[in-house]
């Protein structure tokens, strides 16, 4: 084939090289060198991705392409699994987001983590994350994708627990890993089912196999889809496995931006889009996806209404927006979901990084009740965050408007279930707008409620703007949040269609384009309404918010305690698991098996020792008795066993005669 070289294997391997260099040598290298290594390799990856994407866009490359970059991985009987990387439109989009936004966050981290002890370790882990995430999206078979899947879970654990001296961070890392594991278990079952029914794990082959059976529906396809869905719920923090994401805010803010907003948590959405040919054949599974997405988006939005920690608000917002993407997938509007994934990556990363800038400027303060009046003191942060807030609220002409609108429209067109989901989505859009503007007002407007704060160096610090190395990525992301949606959903859908199937074409629906415009206006109105209510409550210091909370104490308590889900899970699952493991491991394992077997061994030896001791009595007569017994036994042995066949014919038996 005379296609231009794509350098696909280099895309993950370059960050891996960065991980190795920084991980093994970083401790001893000067900080400038660590930064250079950490930035150079992701930049190189991004340039390769950009070049490949450009080739796709300009039409000079026919995709999809699958490259096998190593000899066969697993060959067992009829099963062949290989390290195959491939590029198609969906992968290209994901790669651009991962390496592009990733690179920007790397730049930001140079500034944000400048005073940290484990500077080199942080960048090593970040590069490791890029390595695994790129493998995840480049993989052309499920097993290789699972390698990337697990790897990003590992990187997430390492980065959440980055401040390992803090108990809360270590616990949060562990919680994230364990909950992810539960999802991964579902994913694994799905893989086993795929293997059992299709005999192969390659996406292309499974897709071909399903396409060759037009009547294949439901049954085990539903089972496979549901198992994969469990995995996606774990990674993308949907009900019931979302509980790790708020706690994951213990990690440094760039981590929250990269992993828990832009890329890792979107792996679930990517996986559903990648395996869309399975989900398409199971309306039940798609319905489940939609319902989970709807429930999660509303649920998380309600909790975000009353949170006081700026990062927690953004975390619940992420869960809610991921619910939106699941909504899109649930009505088979995969390209709409991926579109929202892209715009979400821009403005959520922006929001997190800007929040990080605020936290950095306030020397570590994260409680919004202690913020305020930062508009004048941190102007660039203010304006970039404003761009992000408007984008997420879905207000024209920012990016969020287009993507969110597309999802809502596709929901509306999808029948009765779609209708009800549409209203849920609409309500959530309003709530999203409300709590994001609440965050905006509390942080930047009004009088400063910050207490006199001391930073690490021990002297009083005024809130100050962040250095340019942190602000430049914010500006770039703000611009992307503005123009990211201008690609237009139609062009985006057409671009992705070869990879995820044709999107629902609004023009073919009864009513055509005009419906699109009406729904857009409704959505816009709801978002502006949310802004207005937030303005009433929070623009100037007043008692409205407190009075509302006091008037519905039950509801307020429910929301502020996150519906007590963590406590319920603890009682239902964690405590019994601990009890069982203590019983099993502690009592049965430790005491019974280990100590018991040692005791048994010693006991048996002692017993036999006691027994045989009596034999050596020194008594001549007993010795002689045993001698006689031995002789008798030998005699019987000789007569019966050895010479029995001679039948006492001594003429033959006497040898040598």
């Amino acid at each position, binding site marked *: 084939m005379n296609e231009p070289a794509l350098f696909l294997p280099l895309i993950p391997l370059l960050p891996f090289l960065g991980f190795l260099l920084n991980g093994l040598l970083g401790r001893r290298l000067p900080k400038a060198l660590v930064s250079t290594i950490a930035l150079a390799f992701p930049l190189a990856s991004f340039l390769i991705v950009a070049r490949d994407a450009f080739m796709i866009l300009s039409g000079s490359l026919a995709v999809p392409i699958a490259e096998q970059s190593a000899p066969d991985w697993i060959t067992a009987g009829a099963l062949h699994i290989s390290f195959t990387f491939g590029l198609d439109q969906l992968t290209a989009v994901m790669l651009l987001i991962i390496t592009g936004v990733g690179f920007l966050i790397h730049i930001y981290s140079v500034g944000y983590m400048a005073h940290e002890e484990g500077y080199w370790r942080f960048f090593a882990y970040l590069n490791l994350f890029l390595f695994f995430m790129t493998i995840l999206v480049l993989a052309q078979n499920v097993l290789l994708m699972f390698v990337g899947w697990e790897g990003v879970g590992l990187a997430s654990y390492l980065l959440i627990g980055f401040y390992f001296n803090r108990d809360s961070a270590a616990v949060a890392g562990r919680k994230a890993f364990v909950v992810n594991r539960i999802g991964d278990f579902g994913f694994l079952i799905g893989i086993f089912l795929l293997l059992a029914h299709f005999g192969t794990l390659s996406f292309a082959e499974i897709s071909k196999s399903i396409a060759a059976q037009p009547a294949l529906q439901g049954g085990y396809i539903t089972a496979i889809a549901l198992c994969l869905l469990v995995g996606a719920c774990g990674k993308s923090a949907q009900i019931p496995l979302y509980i790790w994401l708020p706690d994951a805010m213990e990690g440094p803010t760039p981590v929250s931006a990269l992993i828990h907003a832009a890329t890792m948590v979107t792996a679930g959405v990517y996986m559903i889009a990648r395996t869309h040919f399975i989900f398409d054949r199971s309306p039940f599974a798609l319905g489940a996806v939609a319902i989970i997405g709807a429930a999660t988006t509303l649920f998380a939005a309600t909790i975000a209404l009353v949170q006081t920690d700026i990062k927690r608000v953004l975390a619940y917002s992420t869960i809610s927006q991921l619910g939106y993407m699941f909504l899109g997938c649930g009505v088979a509007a995969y390209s709409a979901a991926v579109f929202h994934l892209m715009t979400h990556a821009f403005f959520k990363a922006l929001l997190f990084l800007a929040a990080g800038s605020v936290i950095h400027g306030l020397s570590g303060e994260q409680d919004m009740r202690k913020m305020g009046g930062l508009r004048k003191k941190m102007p660039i942060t203010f304006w970039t965050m404003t761009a992000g807030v408007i984008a997420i609220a879905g207000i024209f002409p920012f990016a969020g408007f287009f993507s969110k609108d597309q999802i809502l429209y596709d929901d509306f067109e999808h029948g009765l279930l779609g209708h009800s989901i549409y209203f849920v989505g609409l309500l959530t859009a309003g709530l999203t707008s409300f709590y994001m503007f609440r965050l905006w007002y509390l942080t930047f407007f009004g009088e400063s409620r910050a207490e006199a704060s001391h930073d690490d160096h021990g002297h009083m610090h005024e809130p100050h703007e962040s250095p340019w190395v942190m602000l430049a990525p914010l500006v770039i992301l703000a611009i992307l949040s503005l123009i990211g949606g201008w690609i237009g959903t139609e062009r985006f859908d057409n671009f992705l269609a070869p990879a995820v199937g044709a999107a629902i074409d609004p023009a073919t629906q009864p009513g055509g384009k005009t419906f699109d415009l009406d729904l857009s206006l409704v959505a816009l109105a709801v978002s502006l309404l949310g802004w207005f209510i937030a303005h009433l409550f929070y623009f100037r210091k007043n008692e409205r918010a407190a009075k509302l909370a006091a008037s519905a104490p039950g509801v307020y308590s429910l929301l502020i305690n996150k519906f007590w889900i963590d406590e319920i899970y603890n009682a239902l699952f964690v405590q019994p698991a601990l009890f069982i493991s203590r019983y099993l491991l502690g009592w049965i394992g430790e005491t019974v098996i280990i100590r018991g077997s040692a005791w048994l061994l010693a006991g048996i030896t002692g017993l036999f020792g006691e027994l045989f001791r009596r034999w050596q009595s020194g008594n001549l007569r*007993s010795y002689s008795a045993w001698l006689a017994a031995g002789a008798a036994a030998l005699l019987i042995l000789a007569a019966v066993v050895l010479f029995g066949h001679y039948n006492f014919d001594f003429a033959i038996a006497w040898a040598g005669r």
Partner: protein
Amino acid sequence: MHLALFLIFAIFCLGGAINLLLQTHPINSALSLIVVMSSLAVLYLLLGAEFLAIAQIIVYAGAVMVLFTFVVMLLNVGEEEKTHGSKIAKAVGFPAVAVILGVIATIILQAQKQLGHVSLSDGITTTQELSRVLFHDLLLPFELTSVLILVAILGAVALARKEGHS
């Protein structure tokens, strides 16, 4: 004639052996054993082994048993005490003896037809035949036994010496 001789001396053998078991004083047991050995000498003669018969009388009955008698009289312990040493001896030993006797007897009785007969008119093994084999084919074992006897003498002398002698 042959039968009568055999029966008489066989009964002497068995009687002497049983007496050995039943007597309590060791000197009585020793004397019974001498009876057994002498009877065995006659039986050897009936089987045509004239040299061995005489050797049996001279060596066994005349030297070994005299040695036994000397030691019994020297140590002069008297009658056996009735001590109960070990129940195992009876519980395991007697069945073992029974098994040994039973197996051997069974084998012999089953092979009765193949085994031949002994009669007085069978040839006697002359001393000349015996010595030819002994000093010709088996000279080395013969010399070794003389070394053995030498060692035994030295050992016996060393062991039986009174303590305190230089």
